């Protein structure tokens, strides 16, 4: 007897899960109903910026023909789930259908956080997460005009770079003392700041957007910052972080994490043994992860479990990241926030052109992780050294 897996969300992680289980499920036990809010099948969201500069939807598609033509897969585009009933084991779609499930996976991702500033509903104010968002940005962009990106994190810098490649003159507003505050310390951020400036981005830290002022026709015209500055602005992008999309938790009576997210155990299972959550919407032991690598690990774990294979706990995910700005290399690898006082911290730096910080286990001297900025060794070269004592030519690897 076949069982039905309903997956809510056809994003990067939801797609990975279905694709995995399809290949693991050699005896054809499962059929899949995938409810997708977006009108497009899953695509590589990480490469979204390249869509601004000429790559097509097809280039970024994750679902191949074999997937789309698979009779076991019922992919319903532009058909979001709006509610669910645990007792009846059904999911209600926006079209009013009740879709029954044997197992339910929530893979709803995150939504961009839009800070509650006055005027944020003005025209030409965008978020930066989907093809649709980028279509809007591309239509509104005007060469030579100033734009504002709210948020100087990985995403904000990437968005600003995208805007500058569309010919706009982006300002980036970050409330922390330096860009990418989650990943970088002040030293690495100085290198980034300089590189970003050379790319034509105007970084403004330690200040925030106080209000957005619109032209009479309704589109954004200026942005007022808390430090009093007024920036002319023809297009605005919010990149001020994301919040897990955990709305369905309420209908399902599932617990939500302190900072949002659907609470799951280290195998991504909720307290209901038929319901799972993976990707950015999952709070694994209370913590959400905004990167694709941990999401893929979750997808693999759940796929193996549903296929009846032995599984390992998701564990502590690799949170290494790399900023994708042309000409500015900034990356982290391994652990970059070891428990206070338990690690030896070593910084190799040269002016504001390069900076490498590494952490070593204080007793064994083995490498825990690090931060790289500028003309340093790459994440690919250094990542594999994690867990070992660094070699004698370590400094050469870090600052080649």
């Amino acid at each position: 007897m076949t069982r039905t897996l309903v997956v809510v969300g056809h994003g990067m992680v939801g797609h990975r899960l279905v694709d995995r289980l399809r290949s693991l499920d050699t005896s054809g036990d499962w059929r899949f109903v995938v409810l997708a809010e977006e009108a497009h099948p899953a695509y590589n969201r990480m490469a979204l910026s390249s869509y601004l500069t000429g790559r097509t939807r097809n280039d970024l598609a994750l679902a191949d023909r074999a997937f789309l033509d698979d009779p076991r897969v019922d992919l319903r585009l532009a058909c979001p789930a709006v509610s669910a009933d645990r007792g009846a084991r059904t999911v209600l779609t926006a079209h009013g259908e009740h879709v029954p499930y044997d197992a339910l996976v929530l893979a709803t991702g995150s939504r961009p956080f839009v800070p509650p500033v006055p005027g944020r509903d003005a025209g030409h104010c965008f978020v930066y997460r989907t093809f649709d968002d980028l279509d809007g940005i591309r239509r509104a962009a005007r060469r030579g005009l100033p734009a504002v990106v709210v948020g100087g994190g990985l995403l904000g810098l990437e968005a600003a770079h995208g805007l500058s490649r569309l010919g706009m003159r982006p300002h980036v507003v970050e409330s922390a003392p330096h860009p990418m505050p989650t990943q970088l310390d002040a030293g690495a951020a100085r290198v980034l700041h300089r590189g970003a400036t050379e790319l034509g981005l105007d970084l403004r830290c330690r200040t925030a957007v106080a209000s957005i002022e619109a032209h009479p026709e309704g589109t954004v015209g200026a942005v007022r910052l808390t430090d009093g500055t007024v920036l002319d602005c023809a297009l605005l992008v919010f990149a001020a972080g994301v919040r897990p999309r955990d709305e369905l938790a309420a209908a399902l009576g599932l617990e939500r994490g302190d900072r949002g997210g659907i609470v799951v155990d280290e195998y991504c299972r909720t307290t209901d043994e038929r319901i799972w959550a993976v990707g950015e919407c999952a709070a694994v032991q209370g913590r959400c992860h905004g990167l694709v690598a941990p999401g893929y690990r979750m997808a693999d774990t759940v796929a193996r479990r549903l296929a009846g294979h032995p599984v390992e706990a998701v564990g502590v995910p690799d949170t290494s990241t790399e900023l994708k700005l042309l000409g500015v290399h900034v990356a982290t690898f391994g652990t970059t926030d070891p428990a206070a006082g338990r690690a030896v911290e070593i910084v190799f730096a040269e002016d504001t052109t390069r900076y490498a910080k590494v952490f070593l286990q204080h007793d064994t001297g083995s490498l825990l992780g690090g931060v790289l900025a500028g003309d340093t060794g790459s994440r690919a070269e250094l990542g594999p050294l994690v867990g070992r004592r660094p070699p004698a030519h370590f400094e050469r690897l870090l600052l080649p």
Partner: protein
Amino acid sequence: MSGILVVGDGPAAHRLAERLRGHGHTGPLTVLGAEPAHHRPLLTDVVAGRLPAEAVRLPPLPDTRVSTGTVVTGIDRARHEVRARQGGTETVHSYDTLVLATGARPVVPDIVGATGGDGHLAAGVTTLRTASDCARITGETVVVLGGGPLGVETASALAARGTDTTLICAHPHPLHERLGETCAALLTETLEQAGVTMLGGRTVVRRTPDRVLLDDGTNLRADTLVLCTGAAPDVRLARAAGLRVRTGIVVDDRLRTSDPHIHALGDCAELNGRAPGGVDTAWAQADALAAILTGHATVHRPTPTVFRLRTRFADVSCVGDPADFDRPGARTVTLTDQANRRHARLALRDEHLVAAVLFGVPEAIAALGIAHRYGRPVPSDLLGLLLGPPARPAPVGSETDEDALVCLCNNVRRPALVKAWQSGARTVTALAGATRATTGCGGCGPLVARLCDDWEHEARPAPERAR
């Protein structure tokens, strides 16, 4: 041979006189000193009770007329004479070459109640410059004012002898500018653990007998208040004689003042716009001046010195200038190990060390100090040097290899000590006399003491062999 007259009898004068004779100066050589010659870096050991006061006296000089208790009061440059007072009598001394080695005087800050009506320090208040100052530090509760090396060393010495000690400094941490925030904070932590009460970001504004009042309103008991608030070159004679003076007595690369017959060196001299002070500088200048005055050299080229904090509680040393860390083109390496209380900050240019601040990494100090002084490339595995091998107990004595440098200040290697031992120098003092080891910053004192111990045990026939 012309006569050389030296004013002041500190380490600079002492070393100069010794070296002049060594270089074959046969003419008259006279040293006029207000007080007996002291090796001041050991004063804090006297404070700690580790050394008797006599131990800081420098040995008598051969073939030199030393007139102790003689204060020079004026220079007559036209007549090549100085006037002096010894006890009640005025004396006049002529010179062909005059050398000013008048050193530095403690700076006394403006604190209500710290000085008496006559301008002298009140009872219960002292600076630390001479052996007799050590005896002025009395009582159970002592407050030390000053966040420089001397303040830290004095407070450490007092804590080591069991005195209830408070160190007050203007910056949040002592040696803040020299060490930088992280390292200075580690120092505060370490001193606190050693029992010193640390009060950063404050100063003393008023003193009453047995108490001090701080600028933030804190009122503390203080049987003695020790002022370690810096020293300034003693330029009084030079200024009165019309010589060029800025911070110190300005000298050229021949250690000559603006009068070609008058030289200056040590703490009182300013060379290349700097008057850094310190015994290493004083000695290097004395060596150079002796060579210059005897025709063995023409100029003095200063070599960089190592600063090493003299406290048993922490191994702290620096080379170079803190400003070198921020100069463009420098590569920096910074290591912070809170768990093991280690910190190192290096500024490099290519493979050369420009500046370093080191805390708790004694193995690295000698290697980096030498690399800096002689401009040699630093080892390529800097991390290995700084971190050392993974923590494991080292058997006593094993970490010194046969040719290891023991005394960085005087460049004494282990073989020199072995030789001295074999020719009969069997105590630390005797080894120091024979090799000069331990007489610089004193940082190698414990190591020399241990070597001494080891050798003594080796020398004693073991019971088995006696059989």
